[in-house]
């Protein structure tokens, strides 16, 4: 019996038993819609938690920590260029990106345009290799070390505030005005008080968390301080280009670096999940230079953490093991990511299991229905055998009918699950804002659609297997006497 004939006869049979099939299909629809709903929810939550809050395709290595019970202190090997090379050699590691924090105090002020008044704050900052975040930035070229030597053939090829001299971009001299903190530098360059030269603002990036935290919590709190009026929520587009002045080597907390403080301007050029959670992140070369100036040579050579980008998410556990065997620890963010991934996987599995139990019950129902159907069609099956149906033809006919219920039930189930997710998303728009509130709580990658229909078909076919086998084994000469 060829496929065309099979589908023809199956369609004829399903058409006449619409009521029975609708009843059986209903169970499948309920089971599959639940299955798809929870899988979609799990994927959506996973995307937010592991894609925005904790990153799972990278491992952040820190020096080994020792927990005495009273306090935790770092020890073990210092993270330097030798360690970077060593970690780069671990199998499964695609690339290695060292991170270095400011090892001196810094304070910042500015923000009048954005917040309506000047804001002073203690600043936390770190630096990383721009290559680590180039995919996160719309224009990666703006996140670079402007102090690096730049060759040129004409002035126009140099950044603002520089001229092309002897094939290299050199900073222009300027008149610094103490009263306005400004000078006569062109474009976005500014006059630095210490060098009296035009400097480009240091490009910095911020973490998506920071914006989420501000919009989800701080905006309300700061608005309250202004007399109850809420402050505007900030979007990325609004804050990109925001500038702030830093006084490096000074602190509001009374501690200062030994070297003379420096004033530099920073400019926000983008957002990335690899940026420091609360603070700002700049190209590594700036941090290295500042650390050398304010904290000495060792501070300029020692990294605070090293990010390992893993080529395949499934290899993260073996990379983690190699890191631990090498005498290093994982940053809290990595451990949290692992923990979060496990929790999500567990919750997702439990829900998927519950849904599969529902589908399984539906399959039992389908099995019973087919036993009833083959009892009713006993003589008919005998007739089919008489006109040339083999045992396998009979098997395929019954299982084909079951598969059709699976396809139809599965498709409606998937659509019902998806519809349910849209409803929840719609209702969620009425919930108050909170950090990381996603536009949708669900994600439906193509495999969920395929799995939904595929599992429906599989369970229906499994449910119909024994009835189909019973029908096929029926003696046609006996069946014809019924």
């Amino acid at each position, binding site marked *: 019996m060829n496929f065309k004939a099979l589908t023809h006869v199956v369609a004829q049979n399903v058409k006449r038993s619409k009521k029975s099939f609708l009843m059986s299909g209903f169970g499948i629809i309920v089971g599959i819609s639940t299955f798809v709903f929870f899988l979609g929810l799990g994927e959506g939550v996973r995307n937010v938690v592991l894609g925005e809050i904790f990153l799972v395709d990278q491992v952040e290595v820190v020096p080994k920590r020792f927990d005495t019970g009273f306090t935790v202190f770092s020890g073990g090997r210092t993270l330097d260029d030798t360690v970077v090379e060593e970690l780069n050699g671990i199998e499964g590691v695609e690339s290695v990106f060292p991170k270095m924090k400011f090892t001196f105090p810094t304070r910042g002020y500015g923000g009048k345009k954005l917040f309506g008044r000047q804001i002073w704050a203690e600043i936390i900052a770190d630096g990383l290799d721009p290559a680590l975040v180039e995919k996160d930035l719309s224009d990666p070229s703006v996140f670079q070390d402007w102090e690096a030597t730049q060759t040129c053939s004409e002035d126009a090829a140099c950044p603002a505030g520089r001229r092309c001299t002897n094939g290299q971009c050199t900073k222009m001299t300027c008149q610094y005005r103490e009263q306005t903190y400004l000078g006569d530098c062109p474009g976005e360059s500014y006059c630095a008080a210490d060098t009296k030269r035009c400097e480009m603002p240091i490009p910095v990036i911020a973490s998506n968390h920071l914006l989420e935290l501000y919009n989800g919590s701080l905006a309300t709190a700061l608005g309250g301080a202004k007399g109850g009026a809420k402050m505007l929520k900030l979007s990325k587009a609004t804050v990109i280009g925001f500038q702030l002045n830093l006084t490096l080597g000074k602190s509001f907390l009374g501690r200062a670096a030994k070297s003379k403080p420096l004033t530099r301007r920073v400019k926000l050029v983008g957002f990335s999940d690899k940026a420091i959670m609360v603070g700002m992140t700049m190209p590594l070369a700036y941090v290295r230079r500042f650390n050398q100036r304010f904290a000495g040579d060792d501070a300029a050579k020692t990294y605070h953490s090293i990010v390992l980008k893993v080529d395949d998410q499934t290899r993260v556990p073996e990379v983690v093991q190699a890191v631990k065997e090498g005498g290093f620890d994982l940053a809290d963010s990595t451990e949290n990511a692992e923990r979060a991934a496990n929790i999500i996987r567990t919750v997702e599995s439990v829900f998927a299991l519950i849904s599969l139990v529902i589908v399984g019950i539906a399959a039992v129902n389908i099995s019973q229905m087919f036993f009833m159907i083959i009892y009713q069609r006993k003589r008919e099956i005998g007739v089919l055998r008489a006109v040339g149906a083999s045992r396998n033809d009979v098997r395929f006919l019954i299982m084909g009918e079951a598969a059709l219920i699976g396809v139809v039930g599965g498709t409606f189930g998937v659509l019902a699950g998806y519809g349910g997710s849209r409803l929840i998303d719609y209702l969620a728009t009425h919930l108050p804002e909170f950090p990381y509130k996603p536009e949708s709580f669900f994600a439906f990658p193509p495999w969920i659609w395929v799995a939904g229909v595929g599992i429906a078909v599989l369970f229906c076919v499994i449910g119909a297997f024994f009835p189909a086998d019973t029908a096929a084994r029926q003696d046609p*000469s006996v069946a014809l006497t019924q």
Partner: protein
Amino acid sequence: MIRITDVRKRYDGAAPGEEALRGCSLEIQEGEFVAIVGTSGSGKTTLLNVIGGLDTSYSGTVEVFGRTLKTLSDGELATFRNGQIGFVFQHFSLLDHLTALENVALPFHFARETHGIDPIARATEALTDLGLGAKLNERPGNLSGGQKQRVAIARALFFKPRLLLCDEPTGSLDTKTGEQIIQTFEQLNADGYTVVIITHEARVSRAAKRLVQIEDGQIVSGEAAP
């Protein structure tokens, strides 16, 4: 040629020694019109099922057109039934959810080789030949007994088989309609079909060219081909 040699058949659950067929031997030549007659329970239908390959749990040998049925696999046997044998049953055995045309075309769906046959055209032709050209799209529920039986005959003739096996084909019909059906079989035999009819009706056995008498599972007369 059909040759049955020492066929014995005992149904599951039957008492020891209680056989439906007890060493039956029979020969039927191609083109014959044979009526197998006997009382109810004498083993007529069992013998027909054995010849048609619907029942394979017996001892002895059944050879139909040179093929020993017991040696065929289930698939081969199905193909054999599909192409070489047409069955006509007492209660018509039509599928109620299908039209006359769809019922007649049913064997087409199980054919391994269809030789480019257009099932609709073939079924239409078969029904028209039997005088049912106006009933092609009627369901069995809307047909009379005689019409139903002619649809069943058209289905049996779909692949122009070499052998027609008919189990009490007039048993559910009134006298006049039964006569018409008998005439149909006579015509088919005249066209070259080998017809084997099981009956206990005298009018049917009169139409046959040879009578095979079966009693208590044994052929008592007419076993040898003329």
